[in-house]
């Protein structure tokens, strides 16, 4: 196995981007840090700068104003990086698909920016912390 991928799997540092979510997915992501779920066990760490990140956790539909920022954050993230779409909204804009201010789904925005972006989907509204952890683990195993 490529050593780059191997180390990426063992030490995914994640950066959380909200592009128009209802807070639920965000709270569940923060919940993953608390003692009940403690993701540091897997080497997963939330970092404060996209430049330090290996994975982006994107929540929200991708509103018109936030899409600009999402692209900027994606450009700042060193490659290789995995983008996790947490929740129904970034995966397919969910119930907001008709919204005039919605530019998502997020994978479309990212593919415009980089056609080779590695994207993993964790649907759910909101996905439970267990689902988020399991989604991240499965996506990493598939790399």
């Amino acid at each position: 196995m490529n050593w780059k991928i191997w180390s990426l799997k063992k030490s995914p540092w994640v950066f959380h981007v909200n592009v128009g979510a209802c807070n639920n997915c965000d709270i569940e992501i923060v919940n993953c840090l608390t003692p009940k779920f403690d993701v540091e066990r897997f080497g997963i760490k939330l970092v404060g700068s996209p430049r330090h990140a290996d994975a982006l956790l994107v929540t929200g539909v991708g509103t018109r104003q936030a899409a600009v920022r999402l692209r900027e954050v994606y450009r700042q993230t060193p490659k290789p990086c995995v983008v996790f779409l947490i929740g129904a909204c970034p995966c397919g804009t969910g119930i907001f698909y008709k919204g005039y201010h919605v530019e998502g789904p997020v994978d479309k925005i990212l593919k415009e920016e980089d056609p080779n972006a590695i994207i993993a989907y964790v649907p759910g509204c909101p996905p439970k912390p267990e689902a988020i952890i399991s989604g991240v683990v499965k996506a990493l195993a598939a790399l």
Partner: protein
Amino acid sequence: MNQQELNGKISQIKDRLTAIEQPLPNRVYLSCESENCYSVNKFLFEEVPARFVIATGIDAEDCFEIIYHYSYDQTGCVINLKVFIRDREKPAVESITPFLPAAEWIEREIHDILGIDFINHPNLRRLILADDWPDGVYPMRKEVKK
């Protein structure tokens, strides 16, 4: 002040209103034309005095309608003031933000989504639409589909 006294108070401004409806004891709907908007709002906020809740901007096909919702908490009564703006080409109404800072955001929002101009608003900049949203496109107008 109980509900009856509240109703009495409201009837003081009867001449400026075009309709008063009360479908439920604690739901009052008042209607007025846009030129009386400022003074009636001022009355509701300062004389009644009721708590401003929000305003709803509606595109009613032939005119624009702004409903100012006030809550009179002692009786749990919601006072709704419907203001009709008949000019569809250049809709404008006087801003109530100067005496009611709570209305700043909602007036900016209605300006964004319906294109109604609020005269004397201190800060009528874009609030909720994106920076790259085209000028002159108002998403809540009926003719705008997605």
